[in-house]
């Protein structure tokens, strides 16, 4: 089974999903990310789904879960690059992915991560 690679850029973990994943691949990604956040102390996670043409409820729930798990481990998650057709379909499915931050692209995603991380830093 293919495992999706997780790259590290400073305090941020980067994931680019480019394949049509089997359910177990998605679950493995979730586990791997949780482990990596804990291991590296990363405080940001960026998931690039610009290559995903299909996001069904399983993948949608995975994104929500990752977001929640990361938050508990004190990391901020942002999902970037959602395709219009995917957004329209998710809405029709009734999935609004509450609690999942999104941005139009990687650049804006990094800006968002920085903003949120700063706010959290100031809060403490």
């Amino acid at each position, binding site marked *: 089974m293919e495992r999706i690679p997780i790259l590290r850029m400073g305090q941020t973990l980067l994931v680019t999903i480019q394949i*049509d*994943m*089997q*359910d*177990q691949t998605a679950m493995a990604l979730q586990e791997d990310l949780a482990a990596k956040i804990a291991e590296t102390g990363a405080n940001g996670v960026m998931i690039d789904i610009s290559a995903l*043409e*299909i*996001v*069904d*409820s*399983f993948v*949608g*729930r995975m994104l*929500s879960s990752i977001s929640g798990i990361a938050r508990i481990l004190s990391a901020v998650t942002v999902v970037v690059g959602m395709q*219009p*057709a*995917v957004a*329209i*379909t998710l809405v*029709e*499915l*009734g*999935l*609004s992915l509450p609690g999942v931050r999104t941005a139009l692209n990687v650049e804006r995603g990094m800006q968002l991560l920085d903003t949120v991380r700063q706010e959290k830093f100031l809060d403490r």
Partner: protein
Amino acid sequence: MTVELSGSATLATEQDIVLARQHVRQLCQSLKFSLVDQTKMVTAASELARNTLIHGGGGQMRWNVREEGARRGLALHFEDRGPGIADLRLALSDGWSSGSGMGLGLPGSKRLVNEFDIETAPGQGTRVSIIKWK
């Protein structure tokens, strides 16, 4: 009403769900569905294929192209001999904004297609048919 393209595929493993998605994608493309309609149909197929595998214990997906007068459509049928759905009414209900994503995702899939038909009973397996018209 003439039926042209048709076929079937087994749904026994997770990889089969991936293959089913790819197959439905190809069918939609050859029928020249718009990108959004393709995405909706493939997503619905993914949901229903997963149901067949996870809740139905495996089964199959059949497809055929439908023609009704001037319009063409794609019909998909998901069948299993699993335990069936005990409370169909409950499974088919959800408020649009709840979107908890739990359960079978039937109402969501229903909204993605034009026609949705389900036949099920405890111990009698489940058969779901969906049609998307171009």
